[in-house]
């Protein structure tokens, strides 16, 4: 199948998966939660096939490269990593409510690609590097981990009162993991995302060093990745050594995810710099 067909299919399946997770959350229907899982998995397969088919197609055109080189390709991959990490986390957290907040993120990310230029472009000299793949994969695994943590933060904020107690009433709350479990979960996933982000920054620095002769040049993208890094470093210290739990740490993680989004999209759209898809 063609890449565009597969992407369209994945968008639809993700939407379906979200709807079933929502039904599961609202009417506490167990089976629809399972359908949500299955659809998310099926969507991920179609999505993977789409990425693979684009990769193969680029080789067929004689300009073969991993599909990580412009805004469209990065957004497709971002959505893919979100679903992957969401599915892994669902097994861990034992609550499908997470799917109801994370799947819409994956769906929106992937749906937004239909507005972008999806032409396969040859790699300009600066992008012809072995670091490209390692850099993109590590960065987006980090971003996606933060996105899933953000999903758990939303659940936390939506279901607990100011004092960290469970809000009363509502069918959804019955399925909800305890607030401490959600809090701990988002911490654990940030503890995985943070080393990934660090690896992403390091591979980016190594790449910059071979392309521009300097491992760090305070380009806006670099600086924003460092800002994100500082925020999550602060978060980890706040939790591990300062004993922050609950709302305070949840809000810090929310701030971290906003900075992550700005680092990924805001910098490209609003600021100028060296990054390739800044203009794309």
């Amino acid at each position, binding site marked *: 199948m063609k890449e565009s067909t597969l992407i369209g299919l994945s968008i639809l399946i993700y939407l379906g998966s979200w709807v079933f997770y929502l039904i599961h959350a609202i009417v506490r229907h167990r089976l629809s939660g399972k359908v949500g899982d299955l659809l998310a998995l099926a969507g991920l397969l179609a999505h993977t096939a789409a990425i693979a088919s684009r990769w193969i197609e680029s080789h067929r055109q004689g300009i073969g490269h991993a599909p990580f080189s412009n805004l469209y390709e990065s957004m497709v991959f971002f959505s893919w990593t979100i679903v992957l990490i969401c599915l892994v986390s669902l097994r861990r957290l034992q609550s499908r409510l997470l799917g109801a907040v994370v799947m819409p993120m994956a769906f929106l990310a992937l749906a937004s690609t239909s507005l972008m230029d999806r032409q396969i472009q040859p790699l300009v000299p600066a992008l012809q590097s072995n670091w490209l793949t390692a850099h993109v994969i590590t960065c987006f695994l980090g971003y996606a981990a933060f996105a899933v943590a953000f999903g758990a933060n939303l659940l936390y904020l939506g279901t607990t009162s100011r004092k960290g107690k469970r809000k009363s009433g509502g069918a959804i709350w019955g399925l909800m993991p305890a607030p401490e479990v959600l809090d701990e979960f988002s911490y*654990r996933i940030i503890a995985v995302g943070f080393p990934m982000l660090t690896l992403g920054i390091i591979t980016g620095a190594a790449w910059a060093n071979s392309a521009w002769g300097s491992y760090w040049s305070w380009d806006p993208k670099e600086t924003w990745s460092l800002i994100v890094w*500082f925020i999550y470093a*602060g978060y980890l210290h706040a939790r591990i050594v300062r004993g922050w739990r609950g709302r305070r740490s949840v809000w810090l993680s929310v701030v971290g995810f906003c900075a992550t989004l700005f680092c990924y999209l805001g910098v490209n759209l609003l600021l100028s710099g060296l990054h390739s898809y800044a203009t794309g």
Partner: protein
Amino acid sequence: MKKTLRSTLDRLEDLLSSTRFTLFLCLVLAGVSIVGTLVPQNGRPEDYEARYGQTGARVLEFLGFTDLYHSAGFILLLSLLGLNLATCTARRFPGVWRSLRRAAGADPEPALAHWKNQDTLELWGDPERVDVDLERALRRLFGRPTVRAGSLEAGASRFARRFEKNRLSRLGPYLAHASLLLILLGGLLGALFGFRATLILHEGEESSTVWIEKEARNLDLGFAIRCNRFVVETYPDGSPKEYRSEVTVSDPRTGTTIDAAIRVNHPLSFRGVTLYQSTYGSSPDFVLEVEDRQSRERVEIRTRLHAPFLLPGGRGERAIAMDFRENLVIPAEMMRMTSFPREDLGPAVRIAIVDDRGFQNPFWILKEFPDWDLRKAGPYRFRFLDLHLLRYTGIEVSKDPGTPLVWAGCILLVLGFLLSLLMDHEVTWVTREVTEKGAIRVRIASRAVRHPLAYEARFAAKKERLRKKLSPWLEEPLDGQSGVRGGDGRK
């Protein structure tokens, strides 16, 4: 007086080594860094004035926001972070190191009384064989035994053991922090002893010095670089595929000569200096004819932009090419005042006579209208004979003795994260005793040092696996018979 000084110093040290200060620095650095991504960095003063007004530009300049990441304030924040990392590590590391080195107490009772993760098993069968299986299973699940109290010899009715797993993960945070210091140190080393410069080389040109912008001086590289050719390759759709500088690097002292190609992402290293493909372009090379009206002396001069040249006539006067247009266009409203047949005048170079007061009365000369010369009355007559566009390559020349430290720091940092964030030090106490009925009773208490909550689920899984591994010994034999009974035979 002395006392208050000391207590102030103590308090200062407390502040510097506190984790609250770490948290504060992380968030402040994040906040301050944002400013530098909003205000353009290292721009020209006139651009700031155009954008922020005169007062605004002066305020930004004063605050150091125009070169934020190299401003004293930012470097101070980074130094404080470095100091904080160092003092935190120095304060806490010895304690952790000692506790890792020191043998733990031999008493399992506090663990069995208080730890949250507990399990009790009763095993039946030949003690020697049970113990072999038990030992193997415990090592698999709970790591290495580090403390033994009581012996495992047959007949000993009771022993206690402490198992530990991922002990080294305790060192993770220190490794991570030390490697951050290493990276900062590498950055400092690069800033102090490194240099960066852009070397513009026209095809056929050679240079052994570079201009260091930051220090406003020429630096002798000790070897010469010659650009033989600069090539741009394109894809069929016209987008760039490769920028390549074909260079010859030669060291006069050793006589070594190397031919190499410098491409984007494929720098060339030579004697500790690295050469990167950075930019390219073309610059004009003019052939001018100048005549001294008085002596009728006429010379042909080949020159470039901004390179003063000697004028004929023997008066030692000089001129310079100030500006160049590939096609000089007369504004439409000026057309009526001139006698030119068209608006596009073609290649033009702007010449000025240089004297000690500066550049005098600059004027344009045109290649396609050689006889047009506004300075007919002056002492010289200029003609623009020919133009060559010379391609040049811009090579970034840099030396950074800090990079090995930075890369070493990066590798150790990742290792430190692996140890501290993705692994946990697990401690497990196990006691074994023989009950009155002849069963071997095993009691287990276990905990993880850093992430106790996450460990609960893992411990539950370990309990299950332990039962699976020891399943042959879990059934109580009927009437002293040996052998295994299936089903739910246990009462």
